[in-house]
């Protein structure tokens, strides 16, 4: 049984290298598929890599292992990020990533728990992951199970009312075995978040809802690790990391481009992007 407890990566440079590999595989998957969500998969990559490979206990050979930490990608459109990580972790063969969004592939356009053991819950309709994360955390607590729950949301996603229902729930029930993340890339589909429907001051909002809030540079691996560590020590209230990120991070011509929310790279763009990621 290969429980990923001992195999955790703590070296910052090593984590950065994994993040590079994940970015390349995200772009590979999207290019092969010819459609999908580029910007939001890249922006959340560093945080997700740090969570999976430096913090989480899990066992790809036994995805339902009771002691596993749970991860929920509430912003389900960043599915390529989750798939690239899970392939890297050994949940399924690496070649499966060639089949993103293809007919009868387990790699559905948005994460589906029926198709891939290890995906905890299906997502894709925004605003729902935090509630499920709360429920899991409450269930674990009832069983005195020390496992933790992680949940990544988009900054546009938190416009959903259900997020704030769940924010109240987590604080009310003092859910401290949960660490949520907002991928604060400041863009959504129709434009900048502040133009479409302002969410600022986002740090203060979560604080006002009773959360321990940590705002960080979501691409600085050292800061990410420090924040995740801090979250583990917070008792009696839930923690949220506001990860300030750049949509499309790692590829200059995708960065901060609202149109690359939902466009896959062309082959030419892919070749250029891979060079940039390797040199960056």
């Amino acid at each position, binding site marked *: 049984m290969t429980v990923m407890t001992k195999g955790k990566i703590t070296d910052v440079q090593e984590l950065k290298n994994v993040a590079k590999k994940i970015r390349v595989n995200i772009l590979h998957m999207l290019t092969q598929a010819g459609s999908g969500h580029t910007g939001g998969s890249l922006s959340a990559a560093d945080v997700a890599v740090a969570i999976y490979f430096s913090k989480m206990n899990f066992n790809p050979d036994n995805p339902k292992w*009771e002691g596993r930490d*749970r991860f929920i990608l509430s912003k389900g459109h960043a599915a390529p990020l989750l798939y690239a990580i899970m392939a890297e972790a050994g949940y399924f063969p690496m070649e499966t990533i060639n089949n993103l969004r293809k007919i009868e592939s387990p790699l559905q356009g948005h994460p*589906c*728990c*029926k198709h891939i053991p290890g995906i*905890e*819950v*299906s*997502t*894709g*309709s925004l*605003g*729902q*992951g*935090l*509630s*499920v*994360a*709360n*429920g*899991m*955390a*409450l*269930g*674990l607590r*009832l*069983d005195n*199970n020390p496992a933790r729950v992680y949940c990544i949301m988009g900054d546009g996603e938190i416009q959903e*009312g*259900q997020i704030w*229902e*769940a924010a*109240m*729930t987590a604080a*009310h*029930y003092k859910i401290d075995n949960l660490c949520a993340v907002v991928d604060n890339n400041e863009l959504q589909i129709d434009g900048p978040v502040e133009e479409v429907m302002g969410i600022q001051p986002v740090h203060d909002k979560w604080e006002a809802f009773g959360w321990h809030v940590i705002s960080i540079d979501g691409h600085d691996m050292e800061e990410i690790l420090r924040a995740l560590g801090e979250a583990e020590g917070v008792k009696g209230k839930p923690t949220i990391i506001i990860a300030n990120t750049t949509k499309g991070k790692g590829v200059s011509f995708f960065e901060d481009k609202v149109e690359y929310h939902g466009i896959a790279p062309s082959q030419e763009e892919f070749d250029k992007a891979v060079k940039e990621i390797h040199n960056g």
Partner: protein
Amino acid sequence: MAEVQSTEHRTQNTDKSQAEKRKPEATRDAYGKTLLELGKKRPDVVVLDADLSGSTKTIKFAKEFPERFFNMGIAEQDMIGTAAGLALAGKVPFASTFAVFETGRAWDQIRLTVCYSNTNVKLVATHSGITVGEDGASHQALEDIALMRTLPNMTVIVPADAAETESVINTIVDQKGPVYVRLGRAKVPYVMPDDYKFTPGKAFVFHIGKDVNIVAAGITVDMAREAAGILSKEGIDAGVINMSTIKPLDEETLLSAAKSSGFIVTAEEHSVIGGLGGAVCEFLAENYPVPVKRIGVQDSFGCSGRPAELLKLHGITAENIVETIKKALKK
């Protein structure tokens, strides 16, 4: 407390079982009691409510097992998601509120995190149908069966009385996967035989008729039995089927009923679109087309009033079942 059936209706039934001698009881009351008993036996049962625990009767469980009860406040969408999470952590969550809010307000949540994710969540809603009464249309779910029936992986159950409710709850606790149970506010008479035990997907046949078969669920089962009694005195052989599982439908029983009478009447406290009547018509149209009359709310909203008045207004009565059948058979 409103009662659906007056006692004079009841006396028209000749053979009275023990059950029928019991005082009418609301299905939600039976739910509250059963949940409390389940809580004692089953540490994995957890309960969620959205500020209506006094009305849905989950309050009984809440008082006895506060650590396993989660009041989510007036936040139905979050309640469903949290229930899904609890199920994924190995619990058997029962999530309750009024049927309108449970199925309508949180439909996308039920679709994604309960049905698509196939989580072991039991949705038990109370205050379904027009017998909600005075609160009026905003609180009367007439579309919930349709909303739940269309979702893959979902089982839809409408118990006829308090005893069947108890049997249903004790059964679904061990059935893996999403279940929707539709309960009511008003007191309803006991109709099921004393030794009856609910089996998912299995209709209960009181009698298969040669002239017509009435397929009912929930409070209409009692009306159907009364209607059959009246019709029998006029020489019309009317069968009665309690189709308490609306999904999956008991197709075998329905088919034999259709073959026997060549005429089916459905009766439900729900819109005739998409509910029991809809399910029966879908099956018969494809497999054994026979004439069908659907009794229920005819594509409209409800309104305020006493439950019995509302049922009369919408033709959900034994009298209207009788009239509908006689008219159809005359043609």
